[in-house]
């Protein structure tokens, strides 16, 4: 990385920070409007044009709300938990390019906080730090619903972290670099035939599917918002939170949607790359930002649609989906990707063969995915154990008595 003037890093960091904060604010408003539309309501429409300033007003309102800290909480951790969430959320955006090269006051640089050489791993690492926010919020509240919600949510997050990690691994295998800049650059060319975008989402379709499911689960959004299933767990891990601390969790949650969409666009849809329509250079630098925003908005919209359209998943199904389907499929797909890469390198495959291979692989993995995701009866191994076991293990009651004793102690 070449040397820049000292203001450049500050500029990059602050631009990205403000960018994502604004997008998050817009998302909160957009979600309320769109979901309202899906439910034949109006949604917020008083403040600003189409109620667009509603989020701002809500944010200000948060400051003037009482911040109740219940008596039984573990204070330092109780305060720390929402902070971790927000900070990890912002940091995971550090490697995402929100636009192309820009020239400002004689300095030319890419619109990204920093194109770290461990790029994609940075995203995953911040995701794994985010788990602490949820877990610690539940633990420090010292109250039943948050505790369960926290453990549930963190178990869900770590389960899908594996699936996501495997999907990202496929991308890295295909690209051969961990650097986000390289991954974006590798997608900027043509796809299998001229005119088709070289997006990873097409070539690595199964990985894309896994990542899509994984990102919804990671963000804890409907239909995978089990952690705060209000019917069973009230608010989940943040039940005991109020005021600005609650606001932080809300911010982190919505920011997660933005981050996940941005990561998705970066890894699978070519990031800010896109046609410039032969515009003059003076204007062309806007196009990457435009493309990035459009693509990201599409995924944010997808998140909102999911929320509006789908009922909540059941927790056991959710965990089964993650472990029994996504993890094995992700592993196999990573190896298949590597095999395809090697084939590409060693023999000159014709376009037809490539397409054929890709379709075959995608169908195979897709089929696995849907067979696995089918209702439980289809894939459950008949459990021959239990009845025999209870019969054979004569003092089965002793087992239970033991438990009772143990619980009592």
């Amino acid at each position, binding site marked *: 990385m070449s040397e820049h003037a000292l203001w450049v890093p500050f500029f990059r960091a602050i631009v990205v920070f403000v960018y994502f904060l604004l997008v998050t604010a817009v998302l909160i408003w957009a979600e309320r409007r769109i979901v309202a539309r899906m439910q034949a309501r109006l949604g917020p429409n008083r403040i600003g044009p189409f109620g667009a300033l509603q989020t701002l007003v809500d944010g200000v309102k948060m400051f003037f709300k009482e911040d109740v800290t219940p008596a039984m909480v573990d204070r330092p951790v109780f305060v720390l938990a929402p902070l971790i969430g927000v900070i990890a959320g912002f940091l995971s955006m550090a490697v995402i390019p929100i636009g192309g090269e820009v020239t400002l006051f004689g300095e030319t640089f890419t619109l990204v906080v920093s194109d770290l050489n*461990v790029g994609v791993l940075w995203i995953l*690492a911040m995701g794994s730090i985010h788990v602490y926010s949820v877990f610690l919020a539940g*633990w420090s509240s010292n109250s039943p619903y948050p505790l369960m919600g926290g453990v549930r949510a963190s178990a869900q997050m770590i389960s899908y972290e594996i699936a996501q990690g495997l999907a990202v691994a496929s991308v890295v295998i295909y690209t051969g670099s961990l650097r986000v800049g390289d991954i974006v650059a590798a997608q900027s060319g043509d796809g299998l035939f001229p005119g088709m975008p070289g997006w990873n989402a097409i070539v690595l379709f199964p990985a894309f599917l896994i990542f899509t499911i994984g990102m919804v689960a990671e963000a804890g959004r409907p239909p995978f918002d089990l952690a705060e299933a209000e019917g069973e767990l009230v608010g989940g891990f943040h039940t005991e939170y109020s005021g600005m601390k609650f606001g932080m969790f809300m911010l982190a949650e919505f920011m997660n949607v933005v981050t996940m969409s941005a990561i998705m666009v970066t890894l699978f849809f070519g990031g800010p790359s896109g046609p410039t329509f032969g515009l003059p250079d003076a204007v062309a630098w806007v196009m990457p930002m435009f493309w990035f925003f459009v693509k990201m908005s599409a995924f944010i919209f997808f998140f909102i649609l999911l929320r509006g359209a789908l009922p909540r998943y059941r927790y056991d199904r959710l965990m089964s989906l993650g472990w029994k389907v996504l993890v094995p499929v992700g592993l196999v797909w990573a190896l298949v990707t590597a095999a395809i890469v090697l084939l590409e390198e060693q023999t000159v495959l014709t376009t037809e063969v490539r397409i054929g291979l890709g379709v075959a692989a995608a169908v195979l993995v897709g089929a696995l995915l849907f067979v696995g995701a089918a209702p439980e009866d289809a894939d459950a191994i008949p459990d021959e154990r239990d009845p025999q076991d209870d019969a054979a293990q004569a003092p089965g009651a002793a087992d239970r008595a033991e438990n009772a004793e143990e619980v009592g102690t």
Partner: protein
Amino acid sequence: MAEAVSFWVFAVLALGSALAVVAMRNIVHAALMLVLNLLAIAGLYLTLQATFISIVQVLVYAGAIMVLFLFVVMLLGVDRDDTLTTAPRLTAVAVAGAALLAVALLAAFVGPYTSPASVCGADTEVAASSDAVRCIGLDEVYGEDGQGGVVLLGEQLFGRYTFPFELAALLLTVATIGAVILARRRDLDPEDLDPEDLDGSEPPPGAAGLGSTSSDALDLDPGTAAADTELVLDTAADDERED
């Protein structure tokens, strides 16, 4: 300059949090301090230019191992007043041992690495003249790859260390078996318990003794068997609590 500053920041952070881990009374607070310690170590790796190792440190240690740790704390239902106490005598022994090791390490490192005669000392002429390869920064070793050491690491891991790499798969397999066995309540394979099996075509060695001497566990009479508790982890599974 930046390197020195970040080194000192992370080093102090690492030391302080490590001390806090042993000093904290609340187990979750101690665990959080350990997380901080691991992150500080990751920072030290970063200072060393080993960015890949650094991020893996965050992913695996802070992101996975400590999460497992916290889950186990939840599993055991550790009360917040549950303090970690050690007998004073043991504490004294531990402190003495740690101090001894610290002094030994200090002595061992300070001598060879800082004296003017040392290849790693400030005296660059000595460093240049002798076998100074050990004193170059990782930056130069990684030099070419520009990926924070991941290329170098990969080439070593999959070229030179093929055998231990595959052994690691066996290690993880054993760990999986252990986790499943620990988490399961039942001791036996039910199919093997089926009495018909025992009268099968070829009686397993020792089956003859089953009926005559004992019908149940060998080691305990039924009364104590019921009282004898299983591992806490096992019975802690208060299965219906969650739902």
